């Protein structure tokens, strides 16, 4: 079995306030793993501990307890960092440099050997649509342009793992779509992507797995499709529904929505069979019976919106 790209095992981080003795727990025994080649979303409300987790992963801060590994190495180990491309939240650059000079600086730091560094940089700038602004000082860039440049620098070392903290923040809808497409291309190339985002509809489109944390606790982790299919409701569409049957359906906890020439009934999955049999027996024609998939947003709000963690 291949070494997981990311492994967190019982990671705890407690911050100490500067002028107070009261500790602030940021992470409480978080455990999860991300396999190589996966696109994994790391979700949670503000203050959940996402950035702290990412900082531990990058070796910027140290966990108080537990163990974390990146490709089997300790976070901050040069061998691990050689395989990572990182986009921090609110990426900051040397504002006096232009995009080309900044990428050249990061290329030298990445240690990546290439015969044509200029070609590589030009290609990356083209990929993130900044080739026309390559000589403009970064201080004059818009928020979206800075974010795109951040993505370019994350890709610079040809990393196996991309850690992206809010990659689409500050981008317009077209820019967001470009980043989504870029992530899907990278996924097809076999890269592992670990990203945090608040735009759950996007996460739904690009991710294989989801890890949800709230107030430092792991709330849920698993395959996205499995999670979404767990919506325990079913929709039955019938051609007509007599009043007597409607009453019985409602007593079974189902909801009824009448349309021009059909009636939609939404009920728990457990009621699927008795309801279908009741409709057949009552002379109703069942036009369709479809399991209802909940959206990631619905699931997320269910888990953390009302305080998913203890």
């Amino acid at each position, binding site marked *: 079995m291949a070494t997981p790209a990311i492994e967190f095992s019982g990671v705890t981080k407690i911050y100490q306030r500067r002028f107070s003795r009261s500790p602030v727990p940021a992470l409480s025994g978080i455990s999860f793993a991300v396999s190589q080649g996966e696109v994994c979303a790391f979700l949670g409300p503000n203050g959940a501990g996402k950035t702290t987790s990412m*900082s531990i992963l*990058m*070796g*910027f*801060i*140290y966990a108080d307890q537990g163990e974390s590994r990146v490709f089997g190495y300790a976070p*901050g180990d*040069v*061998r691990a*960092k*050689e395989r*990572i491309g*990182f986009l*921090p939240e*609110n*990426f*900051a*650059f*040397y504002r*006096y440099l232009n995009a080309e000079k900044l990428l050249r*600086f*990061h290329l*030298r*730091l*990445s*240690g990546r050997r290439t015969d044509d560094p200029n070609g590589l940089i030009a290609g990356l700038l083209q990929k993130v649509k900044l080739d026309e602004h390559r000589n403009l000082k970064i201080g004059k860039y818009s928020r979206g342009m800075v974010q795109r440049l*951040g993505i370019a*620098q994350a890709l610079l*070392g040809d990393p196996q793992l991309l850690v992206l903290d809010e990659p689409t923040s500050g981008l317009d809808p077209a820019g967001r779509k470009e980043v989504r497409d870029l992530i899907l291309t990278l996924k097809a190339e076999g890269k592992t992507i670990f990203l945090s985002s608040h735009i759950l509809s996007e996460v739904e489109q690009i991710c294989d797995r989801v890890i949800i944390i709230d107030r430092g606790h792991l709330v849920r982790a698993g395959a996205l499709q499995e999670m979404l299919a767990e919506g325990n409701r079913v929709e039955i569409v019938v051609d007509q529904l007599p009043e007597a049957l409607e009453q019985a359906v409602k007593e079974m906890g189902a909801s009824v929505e009448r349309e021009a020439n059909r009636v939609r009934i939404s009920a728990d999955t457990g009621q699927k069979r008795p309801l279908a049999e009741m409709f057949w027996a009552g002379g109703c024609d069942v036009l369709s019976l479809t399991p209802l998939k909940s959206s990631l947003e619905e699931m997320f709000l269910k888990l953390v919106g009302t305080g998913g963690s203890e």
Partner: protein
Amino acid sequence: MRIWTIALSTLGSFRRNKVIVLFCGLFICVVLLMMSPLMAYKAMTTAANAQQMQGFILNEVAGLMSLVSGFGSLLAAWAAADAVAGEMKSGTILAVMARPLRRWEFLAGKYLGVMMLMAIYVVAMLGVTFTLAWLGGQRFHTALWVLLVYPMVRYAVWAAVAMLLVTVLHPIIVIAIFGVLATLITIFGQSQSHIPSWVRVPVHLVLPITDLLSEERFLVITRASVKPFGWSNHLTALAYGLDYALVCFLLAVWVFHYRSLSRD
């Protein structure tokens, strides 16, 4: 290679550092102001007062050398403190440290960048001092390396101390501490001081003895020549300075290794 990349980037960033540019601008103004009395002395020199005027001119050059030395120490401390703190404040450190770069390499690159700045400063100020002496009709009969190496080692000590302090403190506090340190060094450096030896000796052991690293020790400025001084004495003094700088730098590396990296 990575250390060199960080060093060059650090040196480049100093050109855009408003505080450093402002300090350098003020310093140039002071030097230019010092030139006017020098030129006046020169113009007023006659056969009758040549001896007296020469004394004035040499005092002027000696004053300039002290100014260069003091300003250089401040510049080294501020540049070292700001080189690290600036990256933390702006958040650029996160992108840099995400690269396959060890923390000590980052600090070493920053330190090298500061020392490159100080090398430019030392060479430039040496040029200014020589020019002013020449304008005053004097010549330095001295080994050039003494005037280059000693200030560099002295600035290496200040830069390392600043780098150590800034790993845990705000750069403004670091500069304030430098003010206190400079005062303490002056007080405790005086052998005639009335402070009891049980206080003076331990403090003297901890604080850098920058007087030992002053090139002025070897210059008889009134004659603008060099005192005879053996190689072993030079080596001991320079080794002391380098050792002090190394210890401070290693302590800075140790503290920096364990601290959290985040946007301040």
